[in-house]
């Protein structure tokens, strides 16, 4: 199939195709490097951040680290595999996938174990595994928005398309996530949808409608939730030393400072013993302590590079579907990374959101790498020599 499509592209683009070999798996070396480096680096950091678990029952080579390793390798292989799958195929499955995502998002509200931490209903528990439908829903929404934008083309200027159809898809994805409640993910997904509709060319005043609805809804959600409210007020008070919620922010800040420019060295950070979830939400702080500014700066630059490259791919992609897929995917990954790093560095209030590729967590890692696989394929079709 790949070969057939490759032939089609070279026929359409003529001589230029000759300079762009179609060898499997991917053609974009920058994106390829990011696909491999970020998850594998993440495994190393998770292993380090899991050291406190040694004090409990786990052994040094403990289950979570091994799981993360397996997921990372499997995820990278999956991404490379997906990079050979023509992204146009997703246009056909986009709407059924979105429907399935909705069903699972609504389902989780009724099925999930309500005795969970914070009583949030975010996961399906299947034996030992937990599956987060919102991870799947992110991808489905990106595909659906891209497919709809492709279908309606220039009609995106019409409010029927931009507000009802595209906006409707976004809102119907965000609302159930907000109800779980998972404010962090809801904001991320909402922002991704918003940016995609923006990139699709919707009129600016159409763009303002849904935020006008969603932002109050989010505020209401915050106020209804004691811990989220507390987080917000802690942030607004500007005092990171506040006992409970401020504790995490203060410990993260100490971790960063202790790391200095070059860090204490891998595994040698001590703040992870004090940080509440060092292997997940606060892994950036562990990175900061053990690798210093060099480490955090590198990760920041890598995510910025991913974002820039994604936008370049979007600009160079041959159709609206590819362009919006690329925009949605890099916005999803980069914005989530930004929020996570901003939380750790105290720029925004604490929201429980993971650092893509790096934080512990199998389904989140797989979702990120699936998106990278799709993006790699969009990159194959893009004419990256064209000026963005």
């Amino acid at each position, binding site marked *: 199939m790949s070969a057939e499509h490759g032939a089609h592209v070279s026929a359409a683009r003529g001589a230029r195709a000759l300079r762009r070999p179609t060898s499997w798996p991917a053609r974009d070396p920058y994106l390829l490097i990011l696909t491999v480096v970020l998850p594998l680096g993440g495994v190393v950091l998770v292993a380090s951040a899991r*050291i*406190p678990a*040694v*004090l409990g029952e786990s052994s040094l080579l403990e289950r979570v680290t091994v799981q993360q390793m397996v997921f990372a390798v499997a995820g990278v292989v999956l991404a490379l595999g997906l990079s050979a799958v023509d992204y146009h195929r997703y246009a056909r499955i986009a709407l059924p996938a979105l429907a399935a995502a909705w069903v699972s998002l609504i389902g989780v509200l009724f099925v999930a174990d309500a005795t969970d931490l914070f009583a949030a209903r975010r996961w399906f528990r299947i034996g030992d595994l937990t599956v987060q439908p919102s991870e799947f829903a992110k991808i489905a929404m990106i595909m659906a928005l891209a497919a709809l934008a492709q279908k309606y*083309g*220039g*009609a*995106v*200027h*019409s409010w029927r398309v931009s507000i009802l159809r595209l906006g409707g898809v976004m809102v119907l994805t965000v609302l159930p996530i907000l109800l779980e409640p998972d404010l962090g993910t809801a904001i991320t997904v909402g922002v991704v949808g918003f*940016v995609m509709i*923006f*990139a*699709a*060319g919707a*009129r*600016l005043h159409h763009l303002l409608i849904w935020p006008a609805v969603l932002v109050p809804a989010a505020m209401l959600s915050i106020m209804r939730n004691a811990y989220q409210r507390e987080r917000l007020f802690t942030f607004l008070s500007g005092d990171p030393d506040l006992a409970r919620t401020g504790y995490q922010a203060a410990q993260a*800040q*100490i*971790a*960063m*400072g*202790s*790391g*200095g*420019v070059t860090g204490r060295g891998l*595994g*040698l950070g*001590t*703040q992870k*013993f*004090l940080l509440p979830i060092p292997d997940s939400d606060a892994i950036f702080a562990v990175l*900061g302590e053990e690798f*210093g*500014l060099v480490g*955090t*700066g590198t990760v*920041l*630059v890598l*995510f*910025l590079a991913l*974002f*820039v490259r994604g*936008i370049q791919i*979007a*600009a160079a992609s041959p159709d*609206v579907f590819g*362009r919006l897929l690329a*925009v949605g995917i890099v*916005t999803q990954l*980069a914005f989530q990374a*930004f929020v996570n*790093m*901003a939380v750790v*560095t*105290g*720029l925004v209030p604490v929201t429980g959101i993971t650092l893509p590729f790096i934080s512990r967590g199998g389904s989140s890692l797989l979702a990120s790498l699936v998106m990278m696989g799709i993006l790699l394929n969009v990159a194959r079709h893009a004419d990256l020599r064209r000026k*963005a």
Partner: protein
Amino acid sequence: MKSVRGLLGSRNKRAADVDAGEPPDPSRRLILMLLGGVGAAGALGWRLFDWHVNQAAALAARGSSALLTRSEINPRRGNIVDRSGDVLAISRSAVRVVADPSELHHDADPFEVADRLAELLGVDAAVIAERLGNPTSRYAEIQREVIGEPADAVAAAIEDGQLPGVRLDPDRMRTYPNRELAAHVLGFVGENTSRPGDVVGQAGIEAWYDDILGGQPGIVSSDIDRLGRRIPIGRYAHQPPQHGSHVTLTIDRTIQHIAEQELDAAIDEFSAASGTILITNPKTGEVLGLANRPAYDPGRMHEYRTFGPEFSNRASGLIFEPGSTFKLITMAAGLDTGAVRPETTHDLPGIMTYYGQEFKNWDERTHPEQTMVSVLQHSSNTGAIFVADTIGADRFYSYLDAFGFGSRTGIDLAGEVSGIVRRRGDPMWFLPDLAANSFGQGISVTPVQLATAVGAIANDGVMMRPRVARAVTHPDGRHETIEPQSIRRVLSTETARTLVQMMEAAESAVTGNLARIPGYRTAGKTGTAEIPSGGKLLEDTAIASYVGFGPIEHPHVLVLVIIERPQTAFFGAQVASPTYARVMSRVATYMKIPPRERRDLNAART
């Protein structure tokens, strides 16, 4: 403004786009997104630089102080052994049963756990349940100093998972295998408030040598996590504890036992309230035995609700009026100053008036033309007044000072008191007081002071500092001997020897003297402190005493017997002398002091 509008797509252009049915040029919006991304990254980068570089030192310092904790490891307290190495006090490893109530309340029914613990420890379940009561607390002490079978049983139950949240912490307990024996010498220990699990000496040797016995705590400083567990890659410094040294006493367990047995017997026989027996070696100042009644068991301190009289070390911590035994001191001063000689004679009136105050002999009998030996023999108060008057008040009191009355002897037991001596020139001193003091009234001394002063007579005039410790053995094996220490020479050798001969002669002349010990030559003096009240003696407040030493060829055992408030007899000669004789004779046998002549011994028996 124009350029931004251009980027977003102008109104006009947008209208055209709609009409044309074509999407706007997407590049502009993508560039705007790029700018947004770069801006966000810039904000993050600025923050990272600020924290990693600008604030690094301050933040790192904050982290250091928050993490590092310091804890102390308790040292092992040294043993106390008697002069031949028999253990009198020892620290044993025990366990302390403690619990994390919050964990317990989370995992189990606290009342069930309390019942189980009560069964294992033999304690009231309600008390344990109360200690476990607070579900938010993280630490509760259930029982200290658990040892042996109950400790094993609790350990097994914890292993079994029957007692969630309960654990055993190391503990030490101070045990006194001989119970009450030498209780006032040993003293006792109490919880060290600044270091849980450790004890601090609060009386006797335990208090006096607390630094030596207690050692120095070890220090562990380490980084800990939120649950108090040590962070393996954190800072860690460990300084092992310096264990306490062992103290060897001058006390001999057997002599101590003799003293306590005979004291009990005397108190029982005369229905006395309390008493003290002090056995010393006047040549070295060593205390061989020190018994007080009432006494306590230092190993069961938790059972005492109040600090009653049983905790007083009467030998050094309480004062009494010495009475006639004090005539030895008066006589020693008289001989040493040359005021009197043994053969000096004087009338001893039954009743006399001295500076307006009336004084009597104990039997109110007059003895004309008596030698100084007779003064001791009859224990004549008027004779003692004659001696003191001849010496003169100034010289008399300077001898009292030299004998150490009115100041501490420096014995190595906590809580020594100095006694009360009012000298000429003191506000409450009047001329008749000299007369009263000369026979041991109107003056307060401790038994240890009296034994030390009389010891100077036995030791050729040199007074030795009393002490109960003779050596310290450090944990590294170093052995430090505490050498005998003389306080001062009080009398000339000649005076001392003369007085000893006079004492022996006087005691020998007493018919039916109960203080006599067959086969041994000893010197001594009875005492009956009479507390006058409205001219009448209150018999139930008398203090009967005897102080003596022997053998007089080489006096190295001194015995002081004090029986307070005897009910069935009254005079020192009746109450204290027989006890003195039994103690002295048993100690002489135990110490293998050869009798003077076997023939004499046989003669004495017939």
